[in-house]
């Protein structure tokens, strides 16, 4: 039941915030905050309970699940399930959710109620994606996150918001529909073999497909996730959407929406089609490495701070893709850690850039400089997250990328070397960000208020979490280890079924 509450609280909180928003903007903000916080606390409780449980070696390794009949005519169930991986991701969702509600406290002044409706519904869709283990429900949630996100960008975005919103919507919708076709193809071919109509994830695992149809169906899923991730040639929606979105939108996009793509790869693409994924992996790995370098280089070339941060996502998510398709223990652990840390560090960077924009009314790096004198706390946190983003040892991102590189090394040395250059390149953009924005003489003579208490409350937990993940990531690794082992085992079982 608790799984349903995660979603219902967000949906209901959103509607309530909308209705109250007609009378009082402030009440609407508080309701939204309360809803997300409630979910966060619920998530924490679930996490604590799950660690005290003895990890059973049953398959699949769900901590909690909820299954209701939904459309029995199609074999569709309302089936939510939580394992260590989804637990971490929904915790990230709630954490960033709190952050984005707080980050829009002063930025959003018009249509406050409707804004929070969209924000909470997007979060609900994301939680649904992380929890759904019925492929139809998954697709349902996948599509559900789009519309509110579209509104967030199109209504409260910056200058070219409509263009960016439409582009975002079209990219994800087209790729989503391709995934729908793939889901249906899997559904019908499963029926052909077994005579059972089902969208159930656990049943479809190990479904035997001919190699060529497995490849096509895998590609259908892959494209949808690769657009979200985003993988190198499919990334063009990302800089626009991230740049034009309001701060909360950018945080949710970079911190969470991209992660749904990575999650889909981990949960569905490889376990369902291990053989096809393996034969496609050389191409995918190369594209991932190209993405790492390309994102880093383009980030360096940007003068718009938000665009700069946006391109770093392309680079970091390239690492995640590399880790997932290397598919060994180390690389997978690294990928999950990177997913979480990237969410936090990039989310925080977007909050800081948003705070800068609120004060300076520009995102152009040329108009900044010397801000450290007037904004010491903001600049200090900017430096911290920039360092995290470039992979400074001691902070979470380093652990993730290091583990990925270790894993990839076992597979291909050449790719490891090139990907490591990507880390080097990240130093350039991170330092450029810090150097040009915060250091140097204050030539424009900015006199500005420093981080407020509210902004401090947003940033401080992120600082702590990144440090924790960088120094002692073991609890997190323990949380998702059973889940990852289960996934690896699924892939192995499916592979065996195919060989038979």
């Amino acid at each position, binding site marked *: 039941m608790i799984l349903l509450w995660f979603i219902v609280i967000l949906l209901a909180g959103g509607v309530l915030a909308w209705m109250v928003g007609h009378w009082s903007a402030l009440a609407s903000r508080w309701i939204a905050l309360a809803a997300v916080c409630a979910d966060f606390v619920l998530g924490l409780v679930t996490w604590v309970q799950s660690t005290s449980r003895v990890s059973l070696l049953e398959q699949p390794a769900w901590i909690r699940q909820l299954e209701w009949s*939904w459309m029995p005519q*199609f074999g569709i169930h309302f089936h939510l399930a939580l394992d260590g991986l989804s637990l971490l991701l929904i915790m990230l969702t709630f954490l960033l959710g709190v952050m984005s509600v707080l980050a829009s406290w002063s930025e959003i002044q018009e249509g406050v109620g409707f804004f929070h409706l969209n924000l909470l519904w997007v979060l609900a869709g994301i939680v649904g994606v992380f929890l759904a283990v019925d492929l139809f429900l998954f697709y*349902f949630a996948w599509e559900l996150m789009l519309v509110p996100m579209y509104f967030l960008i199109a209504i409260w975005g910056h200058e070219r918001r409509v263009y960016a919103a439409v582009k975002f919507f079209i990219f994800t919708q087209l790729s989503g529909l391709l995934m729908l076709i793939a889901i249906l193809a899997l559904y019908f071919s499963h029926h052909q073999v077994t005579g059972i109509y089902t969208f159930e994830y656990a049943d479809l695992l190990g479904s035997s497909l001919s190699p060529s149809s497995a490849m096509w169906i895998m590609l259908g899923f892959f494209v949808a996730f690769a657009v979200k991730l985003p993988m190198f040639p499919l990334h063009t929606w990302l800089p626009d959407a991230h740049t034009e979105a309001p701060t909360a939108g950018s945080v949710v996009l970079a911190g969470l929406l991209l992660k749904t793509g990575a999650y889909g790869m981990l949960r569905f693409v490889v376990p369902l089609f291990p053989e096809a994924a393996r034969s496609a992996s050389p191409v995918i790995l190369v594209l991932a490495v190209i993405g790492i370098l390309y994102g880093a280089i383009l980030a360096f070339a940007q003068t718009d701070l938000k665009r700069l941060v946006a391109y770093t996502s392309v680079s970091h998510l390239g690492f995640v893709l590399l880790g997932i398709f290397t598919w060994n223990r180390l690389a997978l652990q690294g990928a999950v850690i990177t997913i979480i840390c990237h969410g936090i560090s990039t989310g925080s960077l977007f909050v800081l850039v948003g705070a800068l924009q609120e004060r300076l009314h520009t995102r152009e790096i040329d108009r900044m400089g010397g801000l450290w004198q007037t904004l010491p706390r903001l600049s200090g946190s900017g430096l911290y997250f920039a360092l995290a983003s470039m992979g400074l040892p001691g902070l979470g991102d380093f652990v993730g990328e290091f583990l990925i590189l270790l894993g990839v090394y076992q597979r291909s040395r050449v790719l490891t070397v090139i990907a490591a250059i990507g880390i080097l390149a990240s130093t350039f953009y991170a330092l450029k960000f810090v150097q040009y924005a915060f250091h140097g003489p204050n030539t424009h003579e900015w006199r500005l208020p420093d981080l407020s208490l509210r902004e401090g409350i947003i940033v401080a937990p992120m600082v702590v979490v990144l440090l924790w993940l960088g120094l002692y990531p073991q609890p997190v690794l323990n949380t998702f280890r059973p889940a990852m082992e289960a996934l690896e085992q699924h892939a192995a079982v499916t592979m065996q079924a195919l060989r038979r």
Partner: protein
Amino acid sequence: MNAADLFALLPLLLTAGTAVLVMLAIAIVRNHALSLWITLVGLAASFASLWPIERLLPRQITVLLILDRYSVFYFGLILAATFVVSLLCYGYLKIHAERREELYVLLTVAALGSMVLVASSHFVSFFLGLEILSVALYGLAAYLATYRRSVEAGIKYLILAGSSSAFLLFGMALIYAQLGTMELARIATLVTTIPNNPLILVGLVLIITGIGFKLGVVPFHLWTPDVYQGASAPVTAFIATVSKGAIFALLLRYFYSSGAQSIRPVFVVFAIVAIASMIVGNLLALLQNNVKRILAYSSIAHMGYLLVAFEAGGSMASRAIAFYLVAYFITTLGAFGVITVLSDTERDADALVDYRGLFWRRPVLASIFTVMLLSLAGIPLTAGFLAKFYVVAAGVSGAAWVLVFVLVTSSVIGLFYYLRVLVTMYTRTSDVFPSQPAFHPAGAVLISLTVLLVWLGVYPAVLLDLVRTVLPISGG
């Protein structure tokens, strides 16, 4: 024909009776509200009569009509849609027309024609039903005789529908000449014995042409945008839903039960029509600045989507079509309902600029329109999503890959114009607008349509059970 047969015809008789009753009432006293009430009660009674006749199904009544669960399902859909349209008309006519009452006569007659169509099992009843529907529609389209566009729409529809009927008759004549029968069941058995007879093929293609005109699929779509734009908003809603839905139900019954759909050339013709409709409908909608025209082109595309399921064949396809039509009916009625409510005495609110900042002026109405547009675009939480899902599933199960891919890509093109309308509604404007009437009688209808749409989008199990029984093959 015996008493049980007559009893089984109750829905048709009640609808016909309603038309006569409204006409008589007008002769005695002209009262708008009274006419509406008679219509509503008559339609509701006809709808209610669907339950008692259920135990008599399936039943062949003379050679002309077949009453089975398929026809009863579509009876229900037609009656419910007509009911909603009448309600929409009431508020609209109050401010627009001087002679208001006759519209309800035309509306019920058109509903009757549609019902005959979905129950027809003979070329004669097919043609009769079609003409009853069409003649009523000429009157409906041109009903606001003082508006130039309305008359233009009526005449355009008259000429094109007239010529399409001619095609249809010629096609029927050719098939009759070859097979010597006009009964659907006998045609079905005979057609398989002489598969590639040229005269039959020509006849089929001519019938397809006639039906294509009525459905407004490419390349027979030219009338659609003009008539949609010219006719008054509630009438357009009727044309878009009842008229097209009934013809599609008929198409399905004729081509499935006669096995003509699986004849190769016919299959290819429909595939081309489907692809052309999806692509042309969605592309041309991009160029429009008039909401009614956008919806017209969007309906062309939707007919194309339906044809994808039609082409896939099998029982899944007919269920998918039934489900899709329900979702499409609700959505289209809702969308045109919003236009109706927004329209003032001068003209229909069909220009895109009329919708600028609507959300900030009239949030409820804009939210309803948003849900309708999202449903047309096939976004979750609306029935349109499940309908599209069902159609794609039917296509995939029939391995109609090309059609499914065209559906997917063209529906993404379709997103552009739905989003365009959405963006317009959510744009902030500083313009001052004249205050609008706070309550419109159609408001309650629109809200219930929205609730229904979302309910079906979230928990469709009831409707899914219902459409399971809807099979176009007689005796099924």
